[in-house]
């Protein structure tokens, strides 16, 4: 803990901006019912209300409050992305470390399975499976987690292989340590930094992937608010945008709101990831 506060004190401004953005989103996601002025999916006004009180960011085609849906969208999109990434890491890192440590036939089989899965473009693969399984949230999480775990597997296997050539691993093997100890105490602490950095990156990819699937209609299903779906619903409004007055111009801005929310979070997470990567690379300056 002392170590963490020490690192935070030395963090560059870019990292602080990233941290502030991520904390802001986290507060929105956790406190959505308290912060949102209206309910998530209730029609609360006339459709396409301009940006005036009480609908500060207007309403959508069904008269739902856009601000409230953005806030609830943070909870849905970010929450699902987080669970998915965590699951992808649990799967990928476990098998990656096991494959590197055990080696031999185990490594060969798992690696070939992963190769086959990576050979198929992930978006097409996901669309295929989601068409079969239907688009429940559980199916969405499982499919994306498994697809993304292949990338995590590759990374953790490569990192672990580098660590396993070190003399301290040989010392532990000579002592007769079991595999579980080797992975948990000798390999994992040294692999943590690159894996954490990858977690941040992977989170962004999963997040964008879900948004893309929602945009295609196979992601999070309405009426649940989610940013990818909101971009799709409001995309056609761009053609009605009239920049003569501010009120009419807001139609053009409507699809940019959820898209901007996605972009800002991606940038925030990446700023933190850059900082973690920099620390893990061991550079002092």
């Amino acid at each position, binding site marked *: 803990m002392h170590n963490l506060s020490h690192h935070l004190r030395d963090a560059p401004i870019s990292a602080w901006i990233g941290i502030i953005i991520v904390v802001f989103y986290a507060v929105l996601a956790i406190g959505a019912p308290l912060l949102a002025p209206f309910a998530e999916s209730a029609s609360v006004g006339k459709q396409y209300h301009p940006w005036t009180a009480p609908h500060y960011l207007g309403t959508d085609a069904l008269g739902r409050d856009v601000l409230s849906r953005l806030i609830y969208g943070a909870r849905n999109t970010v929450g699902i992305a987080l669970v998915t990434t965590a699951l992808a890491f649990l799967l990928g890192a476990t098998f990656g470390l096991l494959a590197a440590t055990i080696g031999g036939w185990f490594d060969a089989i798992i690696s070939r399975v992963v190769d086959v899965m990576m050979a198929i473009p992930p978006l097409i693969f996901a669309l295929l499976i989601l068409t079969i399984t239907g688009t429940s949230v559980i199916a969405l999480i499982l499919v994306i987690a498994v697809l993304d775990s292949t990338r995590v597997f590759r990374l953790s296997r490569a990192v672990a292989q580098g660590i396993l050539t*070190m*003399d301290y691993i040989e*010392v532990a*093997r000579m002592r007769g340590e079991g595999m579980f100890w080797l992975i948990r105490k000798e390999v994992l602490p040294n692999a943590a930094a690159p894996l954490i950095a990858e977690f941040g990156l992977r989170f962004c990819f999963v997040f964008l992937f879900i948004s893309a699937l929602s945009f295609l209609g196979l992601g999070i299903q309405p009426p649940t608010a989610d940013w990818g779906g909101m971009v799709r619903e409001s995309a056609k409004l761009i053609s009605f945008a009239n920049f003569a007055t501010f009120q009419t111009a807001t139609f053009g801005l409507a699809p940019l709101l959820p898209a901007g929310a996605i972009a800002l979070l991606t940038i925030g997470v990446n700023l933190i990831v850059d900082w973690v990567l920099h620390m893990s690379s061991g550079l002092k300056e």
Partner: protein
Amino acid sequence: MTDLLLEMKDIRIEGRSDRQWKPIIKGVDLTLNRGEILGLIGESGAGKSTLGLAAMGYTKGGCRISGGSIRFDGQDLVGASDEALRRLRGARVAYVAQSAAAAFNPAYKLIDQYCEAPVKHGVMSRDEAQSDAVELYRKIRLPNPEGIGFRYPHQVSGGQLQRAMTAMAMACRPDLIIFDEPTTALDVTTQIEVLSAIRDIVREYNTAAIYITHDLAVVAQMADKIKVLLRGEEVEEAPAREMLSNPKQDYTKSLWAVRDFRRAPPAARQADEGPLLEIQNMSAGYGAVDILKGINLNIARGSTVAIVGESGSGKSTMARVVMGLLPPSSGTLRYDGSPLPKSGKERPRDLQRHIQMIHQMADTALNPKHRIKDVIGRPLEFFLGLKGRAKDARIKELLTLIELDPDEFFYRIPSELSGGQKQRVCIARALAAEPDFIICDEVTSALDQLVAEGILRLLDRLQREMDLTYMFITHDIATVRSIADEVVVMQNGVIVEQGPKDAMFSPPHVPYTELLLSSVPEMDPNWLTQLLKERGDAATQEPQQ
């Protein structure tokens, strides 16, 4: 001969770390005349290389010259423009790096890299440079001087590469060459060839040189005068012979004394004890090729057996076989009278506890994320079942035993330790298992002489106190002289000679041992000249016999 070439006055160099400038060189004066060779010695971190590079007006990244003046042949280098420095470097001052293998560009042939500097500086045309290269390759005694330039760096041996690099430095006939530990990475037998080649060519062209090394015996052969550095400050400087015979400062004396450490012979033992480790007709290797062939070796309880040989002779493979990391392809191993299972996995835990190993590189042998208490505590927990307060108490005992302050080091991580301290922690980790037999794989070769001597003394003391048996793998004959009872000489995976130390160090020897022993540099400044003369005589006599 006496005109001044290089003059550094009160030179100060700083390096940047943790966001502040820290001094590396703290005001050193240095003068060098034409044709003179200055030996620069000190421990690692003393600032030898930094000072050497400053003679070219160059500092490594993250460093700066913060004070003093450097005058090279009347030209001030501290304030000089990049353009002026560029004209100087390579043409009038050249640099020979420690690792030639890393300093050559692997994508170009040697001769292309040779011609680069003279052509760029407009000294010669490409054709002239090429024929000049052949001439210099011949002078520096490279085999096949006409053809060797057309090879790539990976196609020639380390010693040849180092000589090719020296030839390259001579290409523009510079006034000054800086040699940065050119023979440190080489075997003793190769070192001789490179040393004599460098010395002859530098004398022939009357080139001045700064010779950086931590090996006193090497500097004794090369230098006209010697400067000793300690933590960025000059300890003393004197003509080579005077410095070697009569050092004035305590630090210099301690450097000189390192080589005098001799271990007292072990106490006499009862004769009826069998050997602790017996290796019978053992062969081992990776894949189908055997690296070790028909090894027979007995190691007596309480003794230190030194395994000596060049790199690639199979010393470390032998350690891996004994540790059970590499099952031998044939032959038997017996430990304390009973057979030793070939694979470590088949050995009972108590047997694994008895045999411990200390690695060469303490840096990679310690997990960077483990605290010292965990490093030493794990074997205690694993082999002896110690927990909680009993474990902590034992860790502190072990730290005291290896002469580290328990309160200070208990919670540290390896990166907060010096090289010698790390190696001590590795020793403590091995001792924690309460072993009888310890394999020391080049434990001192990555350390400075003073630090290495401390480790050797510690190992010797521990052996007496705990009745340990050592298998001591090394390529350093000086280490063998200090610590061994028995010596085993290996070449190409075969034992060529073995016996008690005194017998091994007195003639007659088998030819390979003779070569190995006579190649170890001695402090006598005439040693290299004498040795080459003797070998030359032997070579000319042979045809007559």
